[in-house]
Each structure stands twice: as C-alpha cells, then as structure tokens.
C-alpha cells in the first residue's frame, strides 16, 4: 500500500493509505474504502455511498469540482489529480473545495506530486499527499512550511503579511 502524508498545523505524519482507487469499469472491492471517479459517483453514487465503506472521489483537472457540491457532506475525501506537476488546475479545484464549497474533509493530492510543490499545495487547502518522489513526512513538512510569511489570503487561512501585527 502506498504511503500517505497527512499534513496539519502540527506538521506532517506518514500513515497507511486505507483507500483503494477503483478504475472505471472495474468492480468495487468488497469492504474496502474506495476512491472513484466523478463519472462513477454520478452514475452509482447512491449504491456506493450506501455500502457502508468510506467513499472518496477523484477530480481530474478538466472536471468541475462544483459538480460534487451536493455529495460532499457524504464523502470521506476528495482526491485532486496532478497528471503532470505543471498542470495547475487542481490548485483551483482545491481552493474552491475549501473556500466556496466549505468542504472540511481530506483533500488529497495524487499523481505527479512533488515536494517542490508542497508549499503551494498546502496553501490551497490540500492536506494529504501521495508523493511521487519518495519524500518523507519530515522532508514534506520542511518544504511546505518553508516560508514564515505569506502575501495573500488562501484556502489554508494563514494570516497574510498585510494583516500581521508587525506590518510597517
């Protein structure tokens, strides 16, 4: 099972990834927590959500995260996909999940997930990572927390420079 890094205000920890990503068209494994596509949750949502396991949905960059709005309270997590690390659409998906859709569950980065993007990912409200570069939780934590100050409001809720008490 792949390593998962969970990131909170207290730092990063490595945990076992309990979820199985189910490929479209393949049967859902019995009793396992699953991540399915947006298409599948739209088609089979009620059955999957009634099966008693935890359900997450993976959003591809071209998909509108708003389509999940009604289902969100029943989802354990939303995985935002980075097919290539240069594809920045998932940053908007994650931001909207937090700021607009009020999702408080896990937002997980999957795909070409690299330590160099830990900072921007974290700021957009992503709090779980399946790193593609073998990063440890400690390395991830260092990269994500590198900047003492931020210049703008974002989904992580950090206080921007202009609102810091020390601003001159």
């Amino acid at each position: 099972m792949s390593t998962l890094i969970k990131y909170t205000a207290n730092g990063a920890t490595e945990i076992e990834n309990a979820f199985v990503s189910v490929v479209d068209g393949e049967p859902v494994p019995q009793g396992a927590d699953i991540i399915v596509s947006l298409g599948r949750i739209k088609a089979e949502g009620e059955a999957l959500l009634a099966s008693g396991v935890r359900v997450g949905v993976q959003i591809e960059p071209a998909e509108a995260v708003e389509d999940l709005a009604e289902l969100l309270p029943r989802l354990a997590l939303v995985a935002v996909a980075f097919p290539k690390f240069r594809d920045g659409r998932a940053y908007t998906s994650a931001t909207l999940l937090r700021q607009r859709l009020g999702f408080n569950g896990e937002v997980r980065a999957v795909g070409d997930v690299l330590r160099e993007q830990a900072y921007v990912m974290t700021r957009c409200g992503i709090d779980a990572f399946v790193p593609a570069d073998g990063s440890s939780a400690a390395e991830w934590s260092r990269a994500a927390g590198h900047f003492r100050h931020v210049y703008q409001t974002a989904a992580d809720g950090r206080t921007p420079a202009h609102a810091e008490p020390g601003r001159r």
Partner: protein
Amino acid sequence: MYRYDAIDKEFLTDRSNEFRHQVGRRLAGELSEDQFKPLRLMNGLYLQLHAYMLRVCIPYGTLNVAQVRRLAWIARTYDKGYGHFTTRQNIQFHWVKLRDAPDILDALAEVDLHAIQTSGNCIRNTTSDPRAGATAEEIDDPRVWSEAIRQWSTLHPEFSYLPRKFKIAVTASAKDRTAARVHDIGLALCRGRDGTLGFEVMVGGGMGRTPFIGQTIKEFLPATRLLSYLEAVLRVYNRAGRRDNIYKARIKILVSSLGAEEFGRQVEEEWAQIDAARADLPDTELARIRAAFIQPGLEVLPPVSDSYEAARAANLALARFARNNVSAHKAPGYAIVDVSLKAHDATPGDANSDQLEAIADLAERFSLGDIRVTHEQNLVLPHVKQSDLPALFEGLVAVGLATPNINLVSDIIACPGLDYCALANARAIPVAQSIAQRFLDADRAELVGELKIKISGCINACGHHHVGHIGILGVDKKGEEYYQLTLGGSGAEDASIGKILGPGLNADQVAPAVDRLVEVYLAERQGEERFLDTYRRIGMTPFKEAVYVDAH
C-alpha cells in the same frame, strides 16, 4: 518609495534559502532538469545559448541608489561587467553560473531585490508608468496599485502553475507608457462619474506569434475591488486556458476563442462568488502602501530656472538633450529626465557597471535617489531640479549616457536575439546598431521626430515588433537570417498591430529600407503628423513602392 519591512525581508531570505536548497539538490542529481526547470524559472534563471541568464525583478521599474549600486557590483562580480534592461522593466545578466545563482540572490536580497517570478508560467513583474509620482498627467499614482499586485501575486498558491506566463501593466494617464493594451491584463486608472477611482480592465492583449490588442471587459472597476477581480480573471483563465499547446496557452487565445463579451461574463460570474472581505485589500493596507509613495524632499521652486535657461541658450548639446530627453514635472522647477541606453554603438538596453554606478551617483545628487526603468529599455531620473540639469547633463555625458534620442528613430527596442538567446532565429542587436548608425545625423533624426522601431529576433516577439511604428522581425530562411518589416504598429494608447510591408530583407538591406520609409514619410507628412499618423492616413502602398523599387 516603498521600503521593505522585516516581513518582506524575511520573505526574501526564505525564498533565497529555498532556492539554494533546490540548486543543491539539482547539483547532487536529486532533481531532474525537467523537475528543476520550473523552479529555476520562477527564480529568473534561464538556460541560454552560452550560459545561464538571471533576470532580476524590478517591481514596476522602480530602483533606489543602493539597488543600482548592487546591480553594478553583480554585473562586475558575476557577469562580464554589464546588464541588460528588458521590456518588463527588469534587468538580466547573461553570463551567470548556476552555482553562483544562490549567492547572487542573497546579494540581491540584501538590498530588497529578487528574481521571483521573472520567468515561468506565473504572474510576472507588474509594469507601470516610469513617470509615476512625477508627472502631472497621472490620475493616481500607479505604484500604489502595482505594489498591491506585487504582493498579491508573489508566490500566489493558486496561480503559480498557470497555462502560460501572465503579464499585468498599470497605466495612469491618457498617454500610455506601459503598452497596457498588449498585456494579458492592462489596467488603466480612471475616474468614475462620481469621481471615485477605478480601472478600465483590458484583457487578452499580447504579442508572440498571434498578436492581439487587449479588449475592455470592464469599463469601470472600483479600485478597491482590484484584487478580487484579478482573482476572478486568473481563476477563469487557470481553469479554461489551453494546456495542450504552448502556443495557444496565453489568455489572449482563450479571450479570442470565447469572445471578450463571453469571457467578461464568466469573469463577472466568478467575481460575484468571491468573498470581497477576504480577497480585497482593506483600506488600511491601501493607505499604508500609499503613504510609502508620498515623495518627500520636493522643494518649492520657481517654475523656471534662470541658470538652466541661460545654460541651455549657451550650450547647443544641452539644448538638444533638453528638447528630447527632458519633460515637465508636476512640481514647479523640476523636470523628468530620460536617460537613453541607445547610444548608436551600444546594445539597446545595456548598461555597464561604471554607467550603473554613475547613474546611482547622479540619482543620489540630483533625483532624490529615485531611478526608473522604462519598458522601452531606457532609464528615468524622475525628480531633477531644472537648475541641476546642466550638471546632470555633464555627468551623463561623461559616461556616455547623454544620447539625446528619446522616442527618435535610434531609440530602438531590441531583444537580445541570436547573440544570446537560444530561441532566436536571427540577430537583433547589430540590426539596431546599423539603423542607429544610418541616422547619426541628430538634426535629421529630430526632423523625423517620434518613430518607434522595435526588433525581435524571432516570432516570440520579445522585441515587441508587432507594435513598432516600424517593426522588424528576424526569421530564418534556409539557414540565412532575413528580416520582415511591418508598419503601423503601436503599443501606446492608440494600440495597433503592424502589417507586413513585403518580402523579407537581408541584414544589410534593413537600414537602407528604413531610410526609404523615412523619406516617404518626410515627403508625405502633413502638419504635426508622426510617421505613424502619416502611415495611417496614406496607407502601405507608397512605403512599399519605395522599399521594393529595385525589385520591379
């Protein structure tokens, strides 16, 4: 001038340390070049033909004395003794070693400079009017808004991996000195009917292989709502901009395919859902930024300096310099001085370390320590007492920086071209020099008047050839350098894209062709018409016939 506080300084330290760490990982082989590339690009580091190039950010083209001295030191220590000012009001060093880059960034950070987002598919340096705070023409000081955008866009987490680079310009007066209409977003400060401050918002302008003039999607955006509106534009672009083809990834392609009206509608729809209280800057912060730009030290002077008038009458060279390089300041008795980096034998936009140090000294003595960079690759000393102009002129003459050719035929924008750039098809610098050489007669150049020539060494159009009154594009034809001329472009408030004159010319034919174009203009012009105005009135044919007369 905006001064960095402890927060800004700590931010730069963190950034510099992060990049040092990344360079270390690259040199140790832990990062592939593919993984490292966007990191170095977002720190301004390009791999060019002969070496790395480091592009240093100069926010809205504003520098202080210590910063210019530091740039001079970097040029001398880590480069071959010069730097090159760019059309984004930045400066770049063309002979940098990768292992030195972290040290250079540290040295820059000591004087509040950096290379953040001078490259990469992110929001680039916001450019603005080099006369900000000095000209009476401005509706408001554009530096206030440019600084707000600088902070907002710095390492913006949602918009650091856009489909393509993104450039914003803020212009503040009817005379546009920022080329706002050929930017991804052009912001023009304006007043609403009730006198409130706002912006006209233009999107989708740009050059490259498919040039577009930006279209207005909002006639009046209240100024205090700027950041939330920018967030909406960037979000629509980040989601919908094309990522399958690098040449179709700029926002101009999205705006063009949707239509400006539909794009604007999507922006409005997105904007309506953004929480203004979170996204827009509070008035207190805007006031804090504004206070930083209040210009101290301006004296109350008589509107005319007798000593300057006398010196100008006695010295023809000073008089010529005054006619071409000196403009009115908002404060009586002061002047704005353009410093040309376009001497006929120089590389357009280059300044060597001695010149940079001289500029710093002169700015310290004569311009309240304030130095600006223009998008046309010149410098500006914005706050000079008229009575100091003769001494300043002598100081500029001493270092070869008193070329009296602002806006004239030899004030040419040119990209680095094939002499440096890995993308170029043809050289740009020698072509610029050949034209300047041909118009060495300063009386004739003044007779011709405003004529903006812009040269790009390839279709990426870094030399802005599309918006040159005369544009020159270098192309590669079966291994030979050819130059395609365009006429009628403008990057100013009357923006337009130039049209192709005719078949390409070889390098030797370009300057003579420009000469013939100028002769047609001089023969045809009426009244106060500029070259551009005459072209617009009489059309392409007379110019084309003059250049290709031998081909018949």
